[in-house]
């Protein structure tokens, strides 16, 4: 028996099931091949047809999202999306989840998540210049939360800092629905020359396939969970389920790839992410309309005795697959060797659309590319509104007693980890490297300049899963609206977004219902605000103790500032400035942080939104910033008006500034202060600019109300709150650290 045959055990129903394939799917494979697959082929199908690679449960619904717009150069379907930012430059970006690995080993899981998204971006010819991270953890007092939080944050910093890409913002939210299933979504943006964009395409029959980067080990092979007879216990033990990140190698890979991209030898390139060599080769061949052929014994290995199955399915990090022009092999190698990296020809592009892998000359895999990609199963899974939903949405405000001391409530909210300053997190991330950072983390959106131009880019990540749980459609709309609003607050016009959709099991009808509602909401939000989706990622099977997490779409949006020097930050600047509220406050308390923190309730419906009003408010803010009359701008989000005002006073890097506010809305004081009505922005302006601001709001049709004046050492909201800003600041800024001591 040859070495290749020895590693091909016979398939049993158990082996098939343990590969996550249904009987029906297996029959489909047999049909596509015209024969039974061998063990290695089964492995290849199982990863390519997995939810993660094939999007089989989400594909149909994702088609609803608008993906076109004037700035879009590349929509979904490539390694990352691309938008035009003018001047011959393009912004390349994507968000991706790394939830399960981060739960198993928080540091390495989060670190390798960052590594993966960086590769998705530089594989397209872009130099990464900014990252974001969106994090969800269980209840703060859950025994594992602290360990997971510390590990994840250290891992994100450990990787991103070492590669030299600044991490400029993100989200951090705690809710018990994430107790055993945290979410770690990582986003990266890079800048490329429009003319030098690379895609994952295997073209040119006979062109070499070149493997570059780290050696292949047994990391992350799906089979780790599999109780197959194929491997002795010993072999199983040698397969770690956790991948360890090597940011130094990533940095070398990044520099070497960018150097290579400046030359004229590259045809296509793709990182080896999930499903490793298999999916990168198959996807490149599918896009190129070609086939691929490998000699697996040429793949650089870290460990002895690896089987073809393991080599094809390994998810070792920091590796890329290139298609180079025939004859340029030596040039490619010399560039990679200069950076101390392996570059090995492991195969070539072929005619005929076959995925062929040889091992020491013997064929071990022979599958039509089509069968792996376009012919992968697609499902319309049943969707059903969950039974208890009406009950959850019911909220009788009359039964909720208004607290006596609203000042104490404000302090309680500022102390809530969901609202408190996230400085403990972003202090661990390098946010200066590359010397572009104009607005560092802590504002509504981060702003970087584009060197060599007057322009800037703004970045934000948003998504409130409590809203989505209580009304997934509205939650989807609000995620898009809030992201766009955060961009408006710094003065940026949205160009496009990347979304990460984190949900429970798609095999549960109520999860599919949530998913379809969220996607429809996001679609309407995107259409209403004119923002296309250019890339994204779906993560299903996020369940905690058998119960799905709250539906959690994360929207990472990128905007352009024509003049970066005009950008605005959220905090008050000078005593005497007027405080103005754009937008309207309604008596809405459903789904609010206030209800949860003060009354222990997750109930009601999320705040109402009307996209025309939302758009009007955002336009006003943008216009006013363009005219240079806005001294500060901050949107009202979790915690409502009172929290937003407090953040304007205390959120800045300099000394806190007070304000004196008077509002005369006819409604419950708690709703007025802590309700989360949407489409509201607090701006501060010089008194003499009020007329000009009114002109703008009048034209755009947005409500404007002067609510107070900046100054003093206290935040006074007449007649119910009077608090020294220093005290508010100390509560808000020390909350996380105090809890983590």
């Amino acid at each position, binding site marked *: 028996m040859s070495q290749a045959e020895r590693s091909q055990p016979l398939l049993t129903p158990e082996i098939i099931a343990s590969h996550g394939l249904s009987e029906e799917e297996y029959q489909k494979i047999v049909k596509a091949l015209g024969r039974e697959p061998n063990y290695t082929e089964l492995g290849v199908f199982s990863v390519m047809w997995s939810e993660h690679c094939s999007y089989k449960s989400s594909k149909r619904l994702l088609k609803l999202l608008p993906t076109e717009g004037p700035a879009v150069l590349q929509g979904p379907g490539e390694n990352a999306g691309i938008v035009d930012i003018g001047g011959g430059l393009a912004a390349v970006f994507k968000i991706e989840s790394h939830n399960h690995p981060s739960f198993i080993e928080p540091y390495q899981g989060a670190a390798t998540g960052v590594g993966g998204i960086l590769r998705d971006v530089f594989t397209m010819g872009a130099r990464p210049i900014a990252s974001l991270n969106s994090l969800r953890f269980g209840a703060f007092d859950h025994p594992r939360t602290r360990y997971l939080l510390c590990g994840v944050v250290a891992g994100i910093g450990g990787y991103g800092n070492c590669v030299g890409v600044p991490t400029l913002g993100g989200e951090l939210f705690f809710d018990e629905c994430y107790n055993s299933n945290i979410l770690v979504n990582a986003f990266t943006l890079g800048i490329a020359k429009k003319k030098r964009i690379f895609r994952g395409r295997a073209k040119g029959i006979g062109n070499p396939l070149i493997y570059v980067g780290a050696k292949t080990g047994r990391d992350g092979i799906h089979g780790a969970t599999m109780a197959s007879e194929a491997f002795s216990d010993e072999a199983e033990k040698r397969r770690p*389920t956790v991948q360890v990140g*090597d940011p130094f190698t990533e940095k070398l890979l990044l520099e070497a790839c960018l150097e290579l991209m400046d030359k004229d030898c590259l045809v296509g390139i793709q990182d080896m992410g999930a499903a490793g060599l298999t999916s990168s080769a198959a996807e490149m061949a599918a896009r190129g309309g070609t086939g691929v052929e490998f000699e697996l014994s040429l793949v650089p290995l870290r460990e002895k005795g690896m089987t073809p199955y393991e080599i094809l399915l390994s998810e070792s990090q920091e590796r890329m697959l290139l298609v180079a022009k025939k004859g340029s092999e030596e040039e490619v190698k010399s560039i990679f060797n200069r950076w101390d990296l392996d570059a090995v020809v492991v195969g070539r592009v072929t005619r005929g659309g076959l995925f062929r892998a040889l091992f020491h000359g013997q064929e071990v895999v022979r599958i039509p590319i089509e069968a792996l990609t376009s012919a992968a199963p697609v499902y319309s899974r049943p969707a059903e509104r969950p039974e208890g939903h009406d009950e959850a949405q019911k909220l009788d405000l009359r039964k909720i007693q208004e607290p006596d001391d609203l000042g104490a409530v404000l302090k309680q909210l500022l102390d809530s980890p969901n609202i408190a300053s996230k400085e403990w997190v972003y202090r661990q991330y390098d946010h200066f490297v590359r010397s572009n950072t104009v607005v560092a983390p802590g504002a509504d959106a981060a702003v970087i300049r584009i060197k060599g131009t007057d322009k800037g880019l703004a970045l934000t990540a948003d998504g409130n899963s409590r809203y989505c749980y209580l009304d997934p459609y509205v939650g989807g709309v609000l995620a898009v609206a809030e992201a766009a609003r955060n961009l408006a607050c710094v003065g940026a016009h949205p160009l496009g977004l990347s979304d990460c959709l984190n949900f429970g099991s798609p095999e549960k009808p109520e999860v599919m219902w949530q998913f379809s509602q969220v996607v429809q909401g996001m679609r309407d939000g995107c259409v209403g605000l004119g923002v296309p989706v250019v890339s994204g990622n779906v993560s299903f099977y996020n369940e905690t103790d058998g119960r799905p997490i709250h539906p959690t779409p994360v929207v990472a949006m990128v905007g352009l500032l024509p003049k970066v020097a005009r950008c605005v930050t959220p905090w008050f600047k000078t005593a005497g400035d007027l405080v103005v509220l754009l937008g309207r406050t309604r008596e809405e308390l459903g789904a609010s942080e206030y209800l949860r923190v003060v009354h222990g309730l997750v109930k009601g419906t999320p705040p109402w939104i009307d996209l025309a009003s939302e758009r009007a408010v955002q336009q006003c803010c943008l216009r006013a910033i363009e005219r240079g009359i806005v001294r500060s701008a901050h949107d009202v989000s979790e915690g409502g008006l009172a929290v937003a005002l407090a953040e304007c006073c205390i959120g800045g890097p300099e000394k806190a500034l007070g304000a004196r506010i008077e509002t005369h809305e006819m409604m419950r004081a708690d709703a007025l202060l802590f309700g989360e009505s949407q489409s509201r922005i607090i701006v501060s302006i010089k008194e003499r600019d009020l007329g000009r601001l009114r002109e703008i709001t009048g034209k755009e049709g947005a409500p404007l109300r002067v609510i107070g004046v900046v100054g003093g050492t206290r935040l006074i909201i007449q007649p119910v709150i009077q608090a020294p800003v220093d005290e508010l600041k100390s509560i808000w800024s020390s909350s996380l650290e105090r809890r983590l001591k």
Partner: protein
Amino acid sequence: MQLGLGFAVRFKIFISLKEGVLDPQGKAVERSLHSLGYQEVQGVRMGKYIEVNLDLASRQEAEARIREMCERLLANPVIEDYRFEIEDEKPSAASKNRAES
């Protein structure tokens, strides 16, 4: 410092990465040793070395406690193995001298 209960020793604990787990640190050190001319070096693996003083009633108890500490805190069972040794066995006083606080 606690009162001596009889069995006071210094433990040495070694934490190393499980076989098969990528060890970027070890790899980097190995490469650097090679470039410094130590070609004869192979298979470099980096780990942690922890010394602790323990003061308990018996050796069995001390070992059991150390094992527990390793599993709960000192080693990350997902990617690391641990091992420990007793430095020496002297009466409490000796160990007290070596302790820091």
